[in-house]
């Protein structure tokens, strides 16, 4: 009893009390559903009832059935493309703001970058449909200019459209961590590199880029993890060839009425994402060294 009293006044106890609302929230809405999904993945759907005997059959199906393998690979491919495109688009913007915008204007630029968030993501997807559609802005303009005679069909309802739409949506999220990392690069290091004889490009490659890698890797994780599980975008602009693993998971839970298989697919996807996230984190260790 005395021990408990003492613990209650300790710093760790106070910390625990402070985070307890958040903790409850996270447990209730994140951990519990996760455990339920995990449990579900080891059961079997028997028409309207659930057979609760333990089985790994769902996982065998998820990992061996060619269609699921194919969809998983496609999801990975799409999110790798999205991630690469996003980081390549975000880096120059972040670099520009950090190095070429006057210090007192930087806050305004960062604010401007958040403007796309003022409209809902669905609205932005529909905007892309308007832009890329059969009778959309791009086709309309190109036909009006006489560049093409038939509307281009490869720009909507396929994987390109998914990559484009997702990259556009995630660029702001990628700009921020890269910007922060670039801001933290000590400018005298870049001057030192110049002083030691490096040209502009060489000192970028040898100093600025490696020192901003933590930001690049953070951006990669931030973009890669959510896009692999995205299902709204492929559903709306992906067409039949742009569907991803999460569309299949949705299908299993709803129309196919096979929640356990859907759960096994979901847990498998999560495992793959976790694996990639760990690889990125491990890569980051190389760049994040002790205080300088």
């Amino acid at each position, binding site marked *: 009893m005395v021990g408990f009293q003492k613990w209650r006044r300790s710093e760790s106890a106070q910390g625990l009390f402070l985070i307890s609302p958040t903790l409850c929230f996270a447990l209730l809405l994140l951990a519990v559903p996760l455990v339920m999904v995990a449990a579900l993945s080891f059961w079997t759907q028997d028409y309207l009832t659930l057979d609760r005997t333990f089985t790994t059959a769902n996982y065998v199906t998820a990992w061996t059935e060619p269609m699921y393998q194919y969809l998983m690979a496609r999801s990975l491919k799409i999110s790798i493309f999205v991630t690469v495109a996003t980081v390549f688009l975000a880096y120059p913007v972040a670099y520009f703001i950090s190095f070429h915008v006057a210090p007192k204007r930087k806050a305004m630029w960062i604010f401007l970058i958040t403007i796309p968030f003022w409209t809902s993501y669905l609205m932005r997807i529909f905007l892309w449909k308007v832009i890329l559609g059969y009778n959309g802005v791009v086709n309309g303009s190109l036909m009006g200019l006489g560049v093409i005679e038939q509307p281009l069909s490869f720009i909507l309802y396929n994987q390109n459209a998914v990559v484009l739409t997702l990259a556009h949506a995630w660029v702001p999220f990628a700009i921020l961590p890269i910007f922060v990392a670039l801001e933290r690069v000590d400018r005298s290091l870049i001057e030192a*590199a*110049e002083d*030691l004889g490096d040209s502009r490009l060489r000192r970028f490659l040898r100093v600025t880029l490696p*020192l901003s890698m933590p930001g690049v890797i953070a951006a990669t994780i931030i973009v890669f993890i959510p896009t692999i599980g995205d299902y709204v975008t492929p559903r709306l602009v992906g067409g039949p060839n742009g569907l991803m693993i999460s569309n299949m998971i949705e299908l299993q839970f709803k129309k196919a009425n096979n929640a356990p298989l859907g759960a096994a697919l979901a847990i498998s996807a999560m495992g793959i994402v976790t694996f990639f996230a760990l690889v990125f984190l491990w890569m980051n260790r190389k*760049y994040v060294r002790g205080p300088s």
Partner: protein
Amino acid sequence: MTLPIIRLSGLDKFYGEFQALSQINLDIKTGEFFSLLGPSGCGKTTLLRAIAGFETLSSGSLQIDGLSMEGVPANKRPTNMVFQSYAIFPHMSVAENVAYGLKARKLPKVEIKARVAEAIDMVGLQGFDERASHALSGGQRQRVALARALVLKPRVLLLDEPLSALDKKLREQMQSELRRLQRAVGITFVLVTHDQEEALTMSDRIAVMFDGKIAQVASPQILYGKPSTRKVAAFIGMMNFLDAKVLAASGDNVEVEVQSLGKLTLSLEQATGGLNGCDSVGVRPEMLTILTGSQTSEREIEAEVTEVSYYGDMTYYDVKFPSKEDPITVTMRNTAGREVLEVGAKARVGWSTSSLLLLK
């Protein structure tokens, strides 16, 4: 007469309206240890960065080794810099830091390796090659910064207050080490410092700067013994000032009326900055003596001790001269048998006319 390694003429630097450097004319000789000394904000860093190529000149010209540096970027100049913060690359080891500039020059690997090892040896960091740069002490970082610059064998090494981040003991050790290193490599060093003692002990010549202008360029002895203005005299060491009025000048002699000391005849040489506008006389505290017993001096004056600070080897006295309000400082070496006077005691202060300087 060899060509100066650095020649600055009519150099101006503006930041918007603010003039950070004005009309800098300066020659730095090949192989010398040159210091830029001045109070904070006087433009020392700006001048050094202008030489290195990090600041563009508003007007005037800069020549290094006889070549105009106009339009030459920092990476193409025969200078290297030791930054105040050292600017050690945090993602590289000690050896990688030192090799940085050699790799930029695309030298063969074997040569890089040999020169890096030599440079690391030279600054006394043997065995630290693979050490991550964040795991170094302040003194070690400073050595890495030095090695990284010296390994390139620049014509001029620029150092921006390289010792200011070190504690007193290490600073003194590094001062003599820097001096030794400079003699060994024979490279021209340009050192920025706001520490007059550091400048005096290390340099061949010193430029004293105030408010973006150079006040005097001279060797340490001349700077201390014959400062050209009252401001320089007050900045370098301690100096007592007495109001003075020039009465007449004829040939080599100047007649002056000095507060408390009366009418004197000084030689023209004692007006170190020229006779024009001289309105005070300066005398270093160690040029004055407190006479005891039967001691005599060329000149004597009665004074009252108002403050005594005992430093062990030295005693600093504040004494009040008749008809002068603020006290005069006299420093005395505490030699055997010398008594330390008390506050309020009467003292005979001995001085000589030759130790006075006529200043403006």
